[in-house]
């Protein structure tokens, strides 16, 4: 079996009395689009923060390409090939759109500023923001800022990309565009972990899904297996509904 791109070995994280993550283990294979789902507060974003080094795991290990990255700081994981978008977009508001992306290219890959701008323009064309390159990032609409987040992450040429709710707050036309974009990124060979609440997106884009609830992994499988899983239905809708659904199903 080939070595997975990312491997979590019973990763835990505690904030004071709150067990945000409890022994989460799973793998992400190369070229996969993995869906990471779970009810609000399940620990999805915390998990990404632990992998990227924003929070340090209280226990367990994170292996990226076979290398232990558990203790690495965010800027180190960024330079080693991990990129993420933020659920709440985080542009540099005073910089122009192109400089936002150029900063990502420059600091993650060590490019000079001029080279980084060239790389940035490519990514802006890819996400469809090229004509807005000279605007300050603060003046973009939410949908554009989400695409800017994506361009920033892509400019880092990651091998593993975390997309944290890139579709939240978008209207249905914008979601369609974003889905097409995600498919194209996956098509270019980048492994993606998609955190998403919109089941339509998860079901159509992901090849495999893992489900978190209250910091623990409760299910793992193909999209079809996941929607049929009684524990997942229970986590989202409650026990009663899960029983009703279970007895209705063959």
């Amino acid at each position, binding site marked *: 079996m080939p070595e997975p791109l990312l491997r979590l070995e019973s990763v835990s994280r505690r904030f004071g009395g709150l067990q945000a993550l409890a022994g989460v283990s799973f793998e992400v294979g190369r070229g996969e689009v993995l869906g990471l789902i779970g009810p609000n507060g399940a620990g999805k974003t915390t998990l990404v923060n632990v992998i*990227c080094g*924003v929070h340090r795991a209280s226990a367990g290990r994170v292996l990226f390409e076979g290398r232990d990255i558990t203790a690495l*700081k*965010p*800027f180190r994981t*960024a*330079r080693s090939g991990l990129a*993420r978008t*933020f659920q709440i977009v*985080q*542009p*540099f*508001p*005073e*910089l122009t759109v192109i*400089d936002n992306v150029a*900063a*990502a290219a*420059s*600091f*993650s*890959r060590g490019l*000079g*500023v001029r080279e980084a701008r060239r790389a940035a323009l490519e990514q802006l064309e890819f996400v469809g923001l090229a004509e807005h390159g000279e605007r300050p990032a603060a003046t973009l609409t939410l949908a554009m800022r989400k695409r800017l987040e994506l361009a*920033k992450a892509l400019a*880092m040429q990651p091998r593993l990309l975390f997309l944290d709710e890139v579709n939240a707050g978008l209207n249905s036309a914008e979601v369609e565009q974003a889905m097409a974009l995600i498919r194209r990124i996956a098509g270019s060979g980048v492994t993606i972990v998609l955190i998403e609440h919109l089941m339509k997106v998860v079901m159509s884009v992901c090849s495999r899904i893992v489900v978190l609830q209250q910091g623990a992994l409760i299910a793992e499988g193909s999209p079809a297996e996941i929607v049929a899983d009684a524990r997942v239905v229970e986590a989202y809708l409650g026990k009663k509904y899960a029983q009703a659904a279970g007895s209705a199903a063959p």
Partner: protein
Amino acid sequence: MNRRRDAILIGAVLLLAAAPWLGGAYALRLGTFACMYAVMAVSWNVIGGLAGYPSFGTAAFFGLGAYAGGVLLSKGGGLIAALLLSGGLAFAGALLLGAVLLRLKGHYFAVASLAVAEVLRELANSATDLTGGGMGLNIPLATLGGAGPLAEARFFFLAMWALLVLTLVVVVAVERSRLGFGLACIRQNEAAADMIGVDTTLYKSLAFALSGVFVAMAGTLYAGWAHYIEPPDVFDVLYSVKPIVMALLGGLGSTTGAVLGAFAFLAIEETVWRNSLQIHSGLLGLLVVVLLLFLPQGIVSIGRVSKAWVTRRA
């Protein structure tokens, strides 16, 4: 716009160099202070304006430079050696201290940086053997071989002016480098900067160190110029506050603004001081408040503001 700002900056600094030929001892003294203040404001702007960390550490660097250089000068060392020593000490000290202090943000960092000068002042007060303690430190007149007070004033003015030019060259180069780019990212969103691969701890420490080097050198020049320093004089908290006011006055984040702010501040300070000895501090504060109220973006925005005012009237 940027080119015009550059032109204003170069013009102002060159104009200042004419001071020795324009006036006597008073003009020289004022010119030396103008250069010293500008070095402080431009330096503060690196950590406060570019990186967004409001440092109250200027007095610490100034006093450190004054004492490190002053002690070496009083033991017969040369001025160049004294400058290198104080600059090197400030850079290394700030780099180490920055790695600790810059974990704090906003007000917490400001208060912590304020404490540094107090600690150094107490050290200077108690290390009597080296610094003379509360008696102060005399620096012999031998620096220029007794060329007379006016020649010496002229020398220290030109030295301070050269230090300002050096500071400007380095700071402008940093602003336009990747370091400056990274600092702009840190100021606007530190978490996001970290996430795209900016080594924030290193960059912030470098900015803090840069904000200290030239101020420490200015302290050494001041010690040589004044021939006498004492702890409450060179570790004066006002040396921490004034550069911030100057940078705000000129326009936060702008190097040209910092220079213009320093000159404007000195002009205001000097006029107010001469004309109303009793309430000069109060008047100075009032003037600063008025300026910040009507020109919140500082002197560099004066063209934009007046244009907007004219169009509104028309």
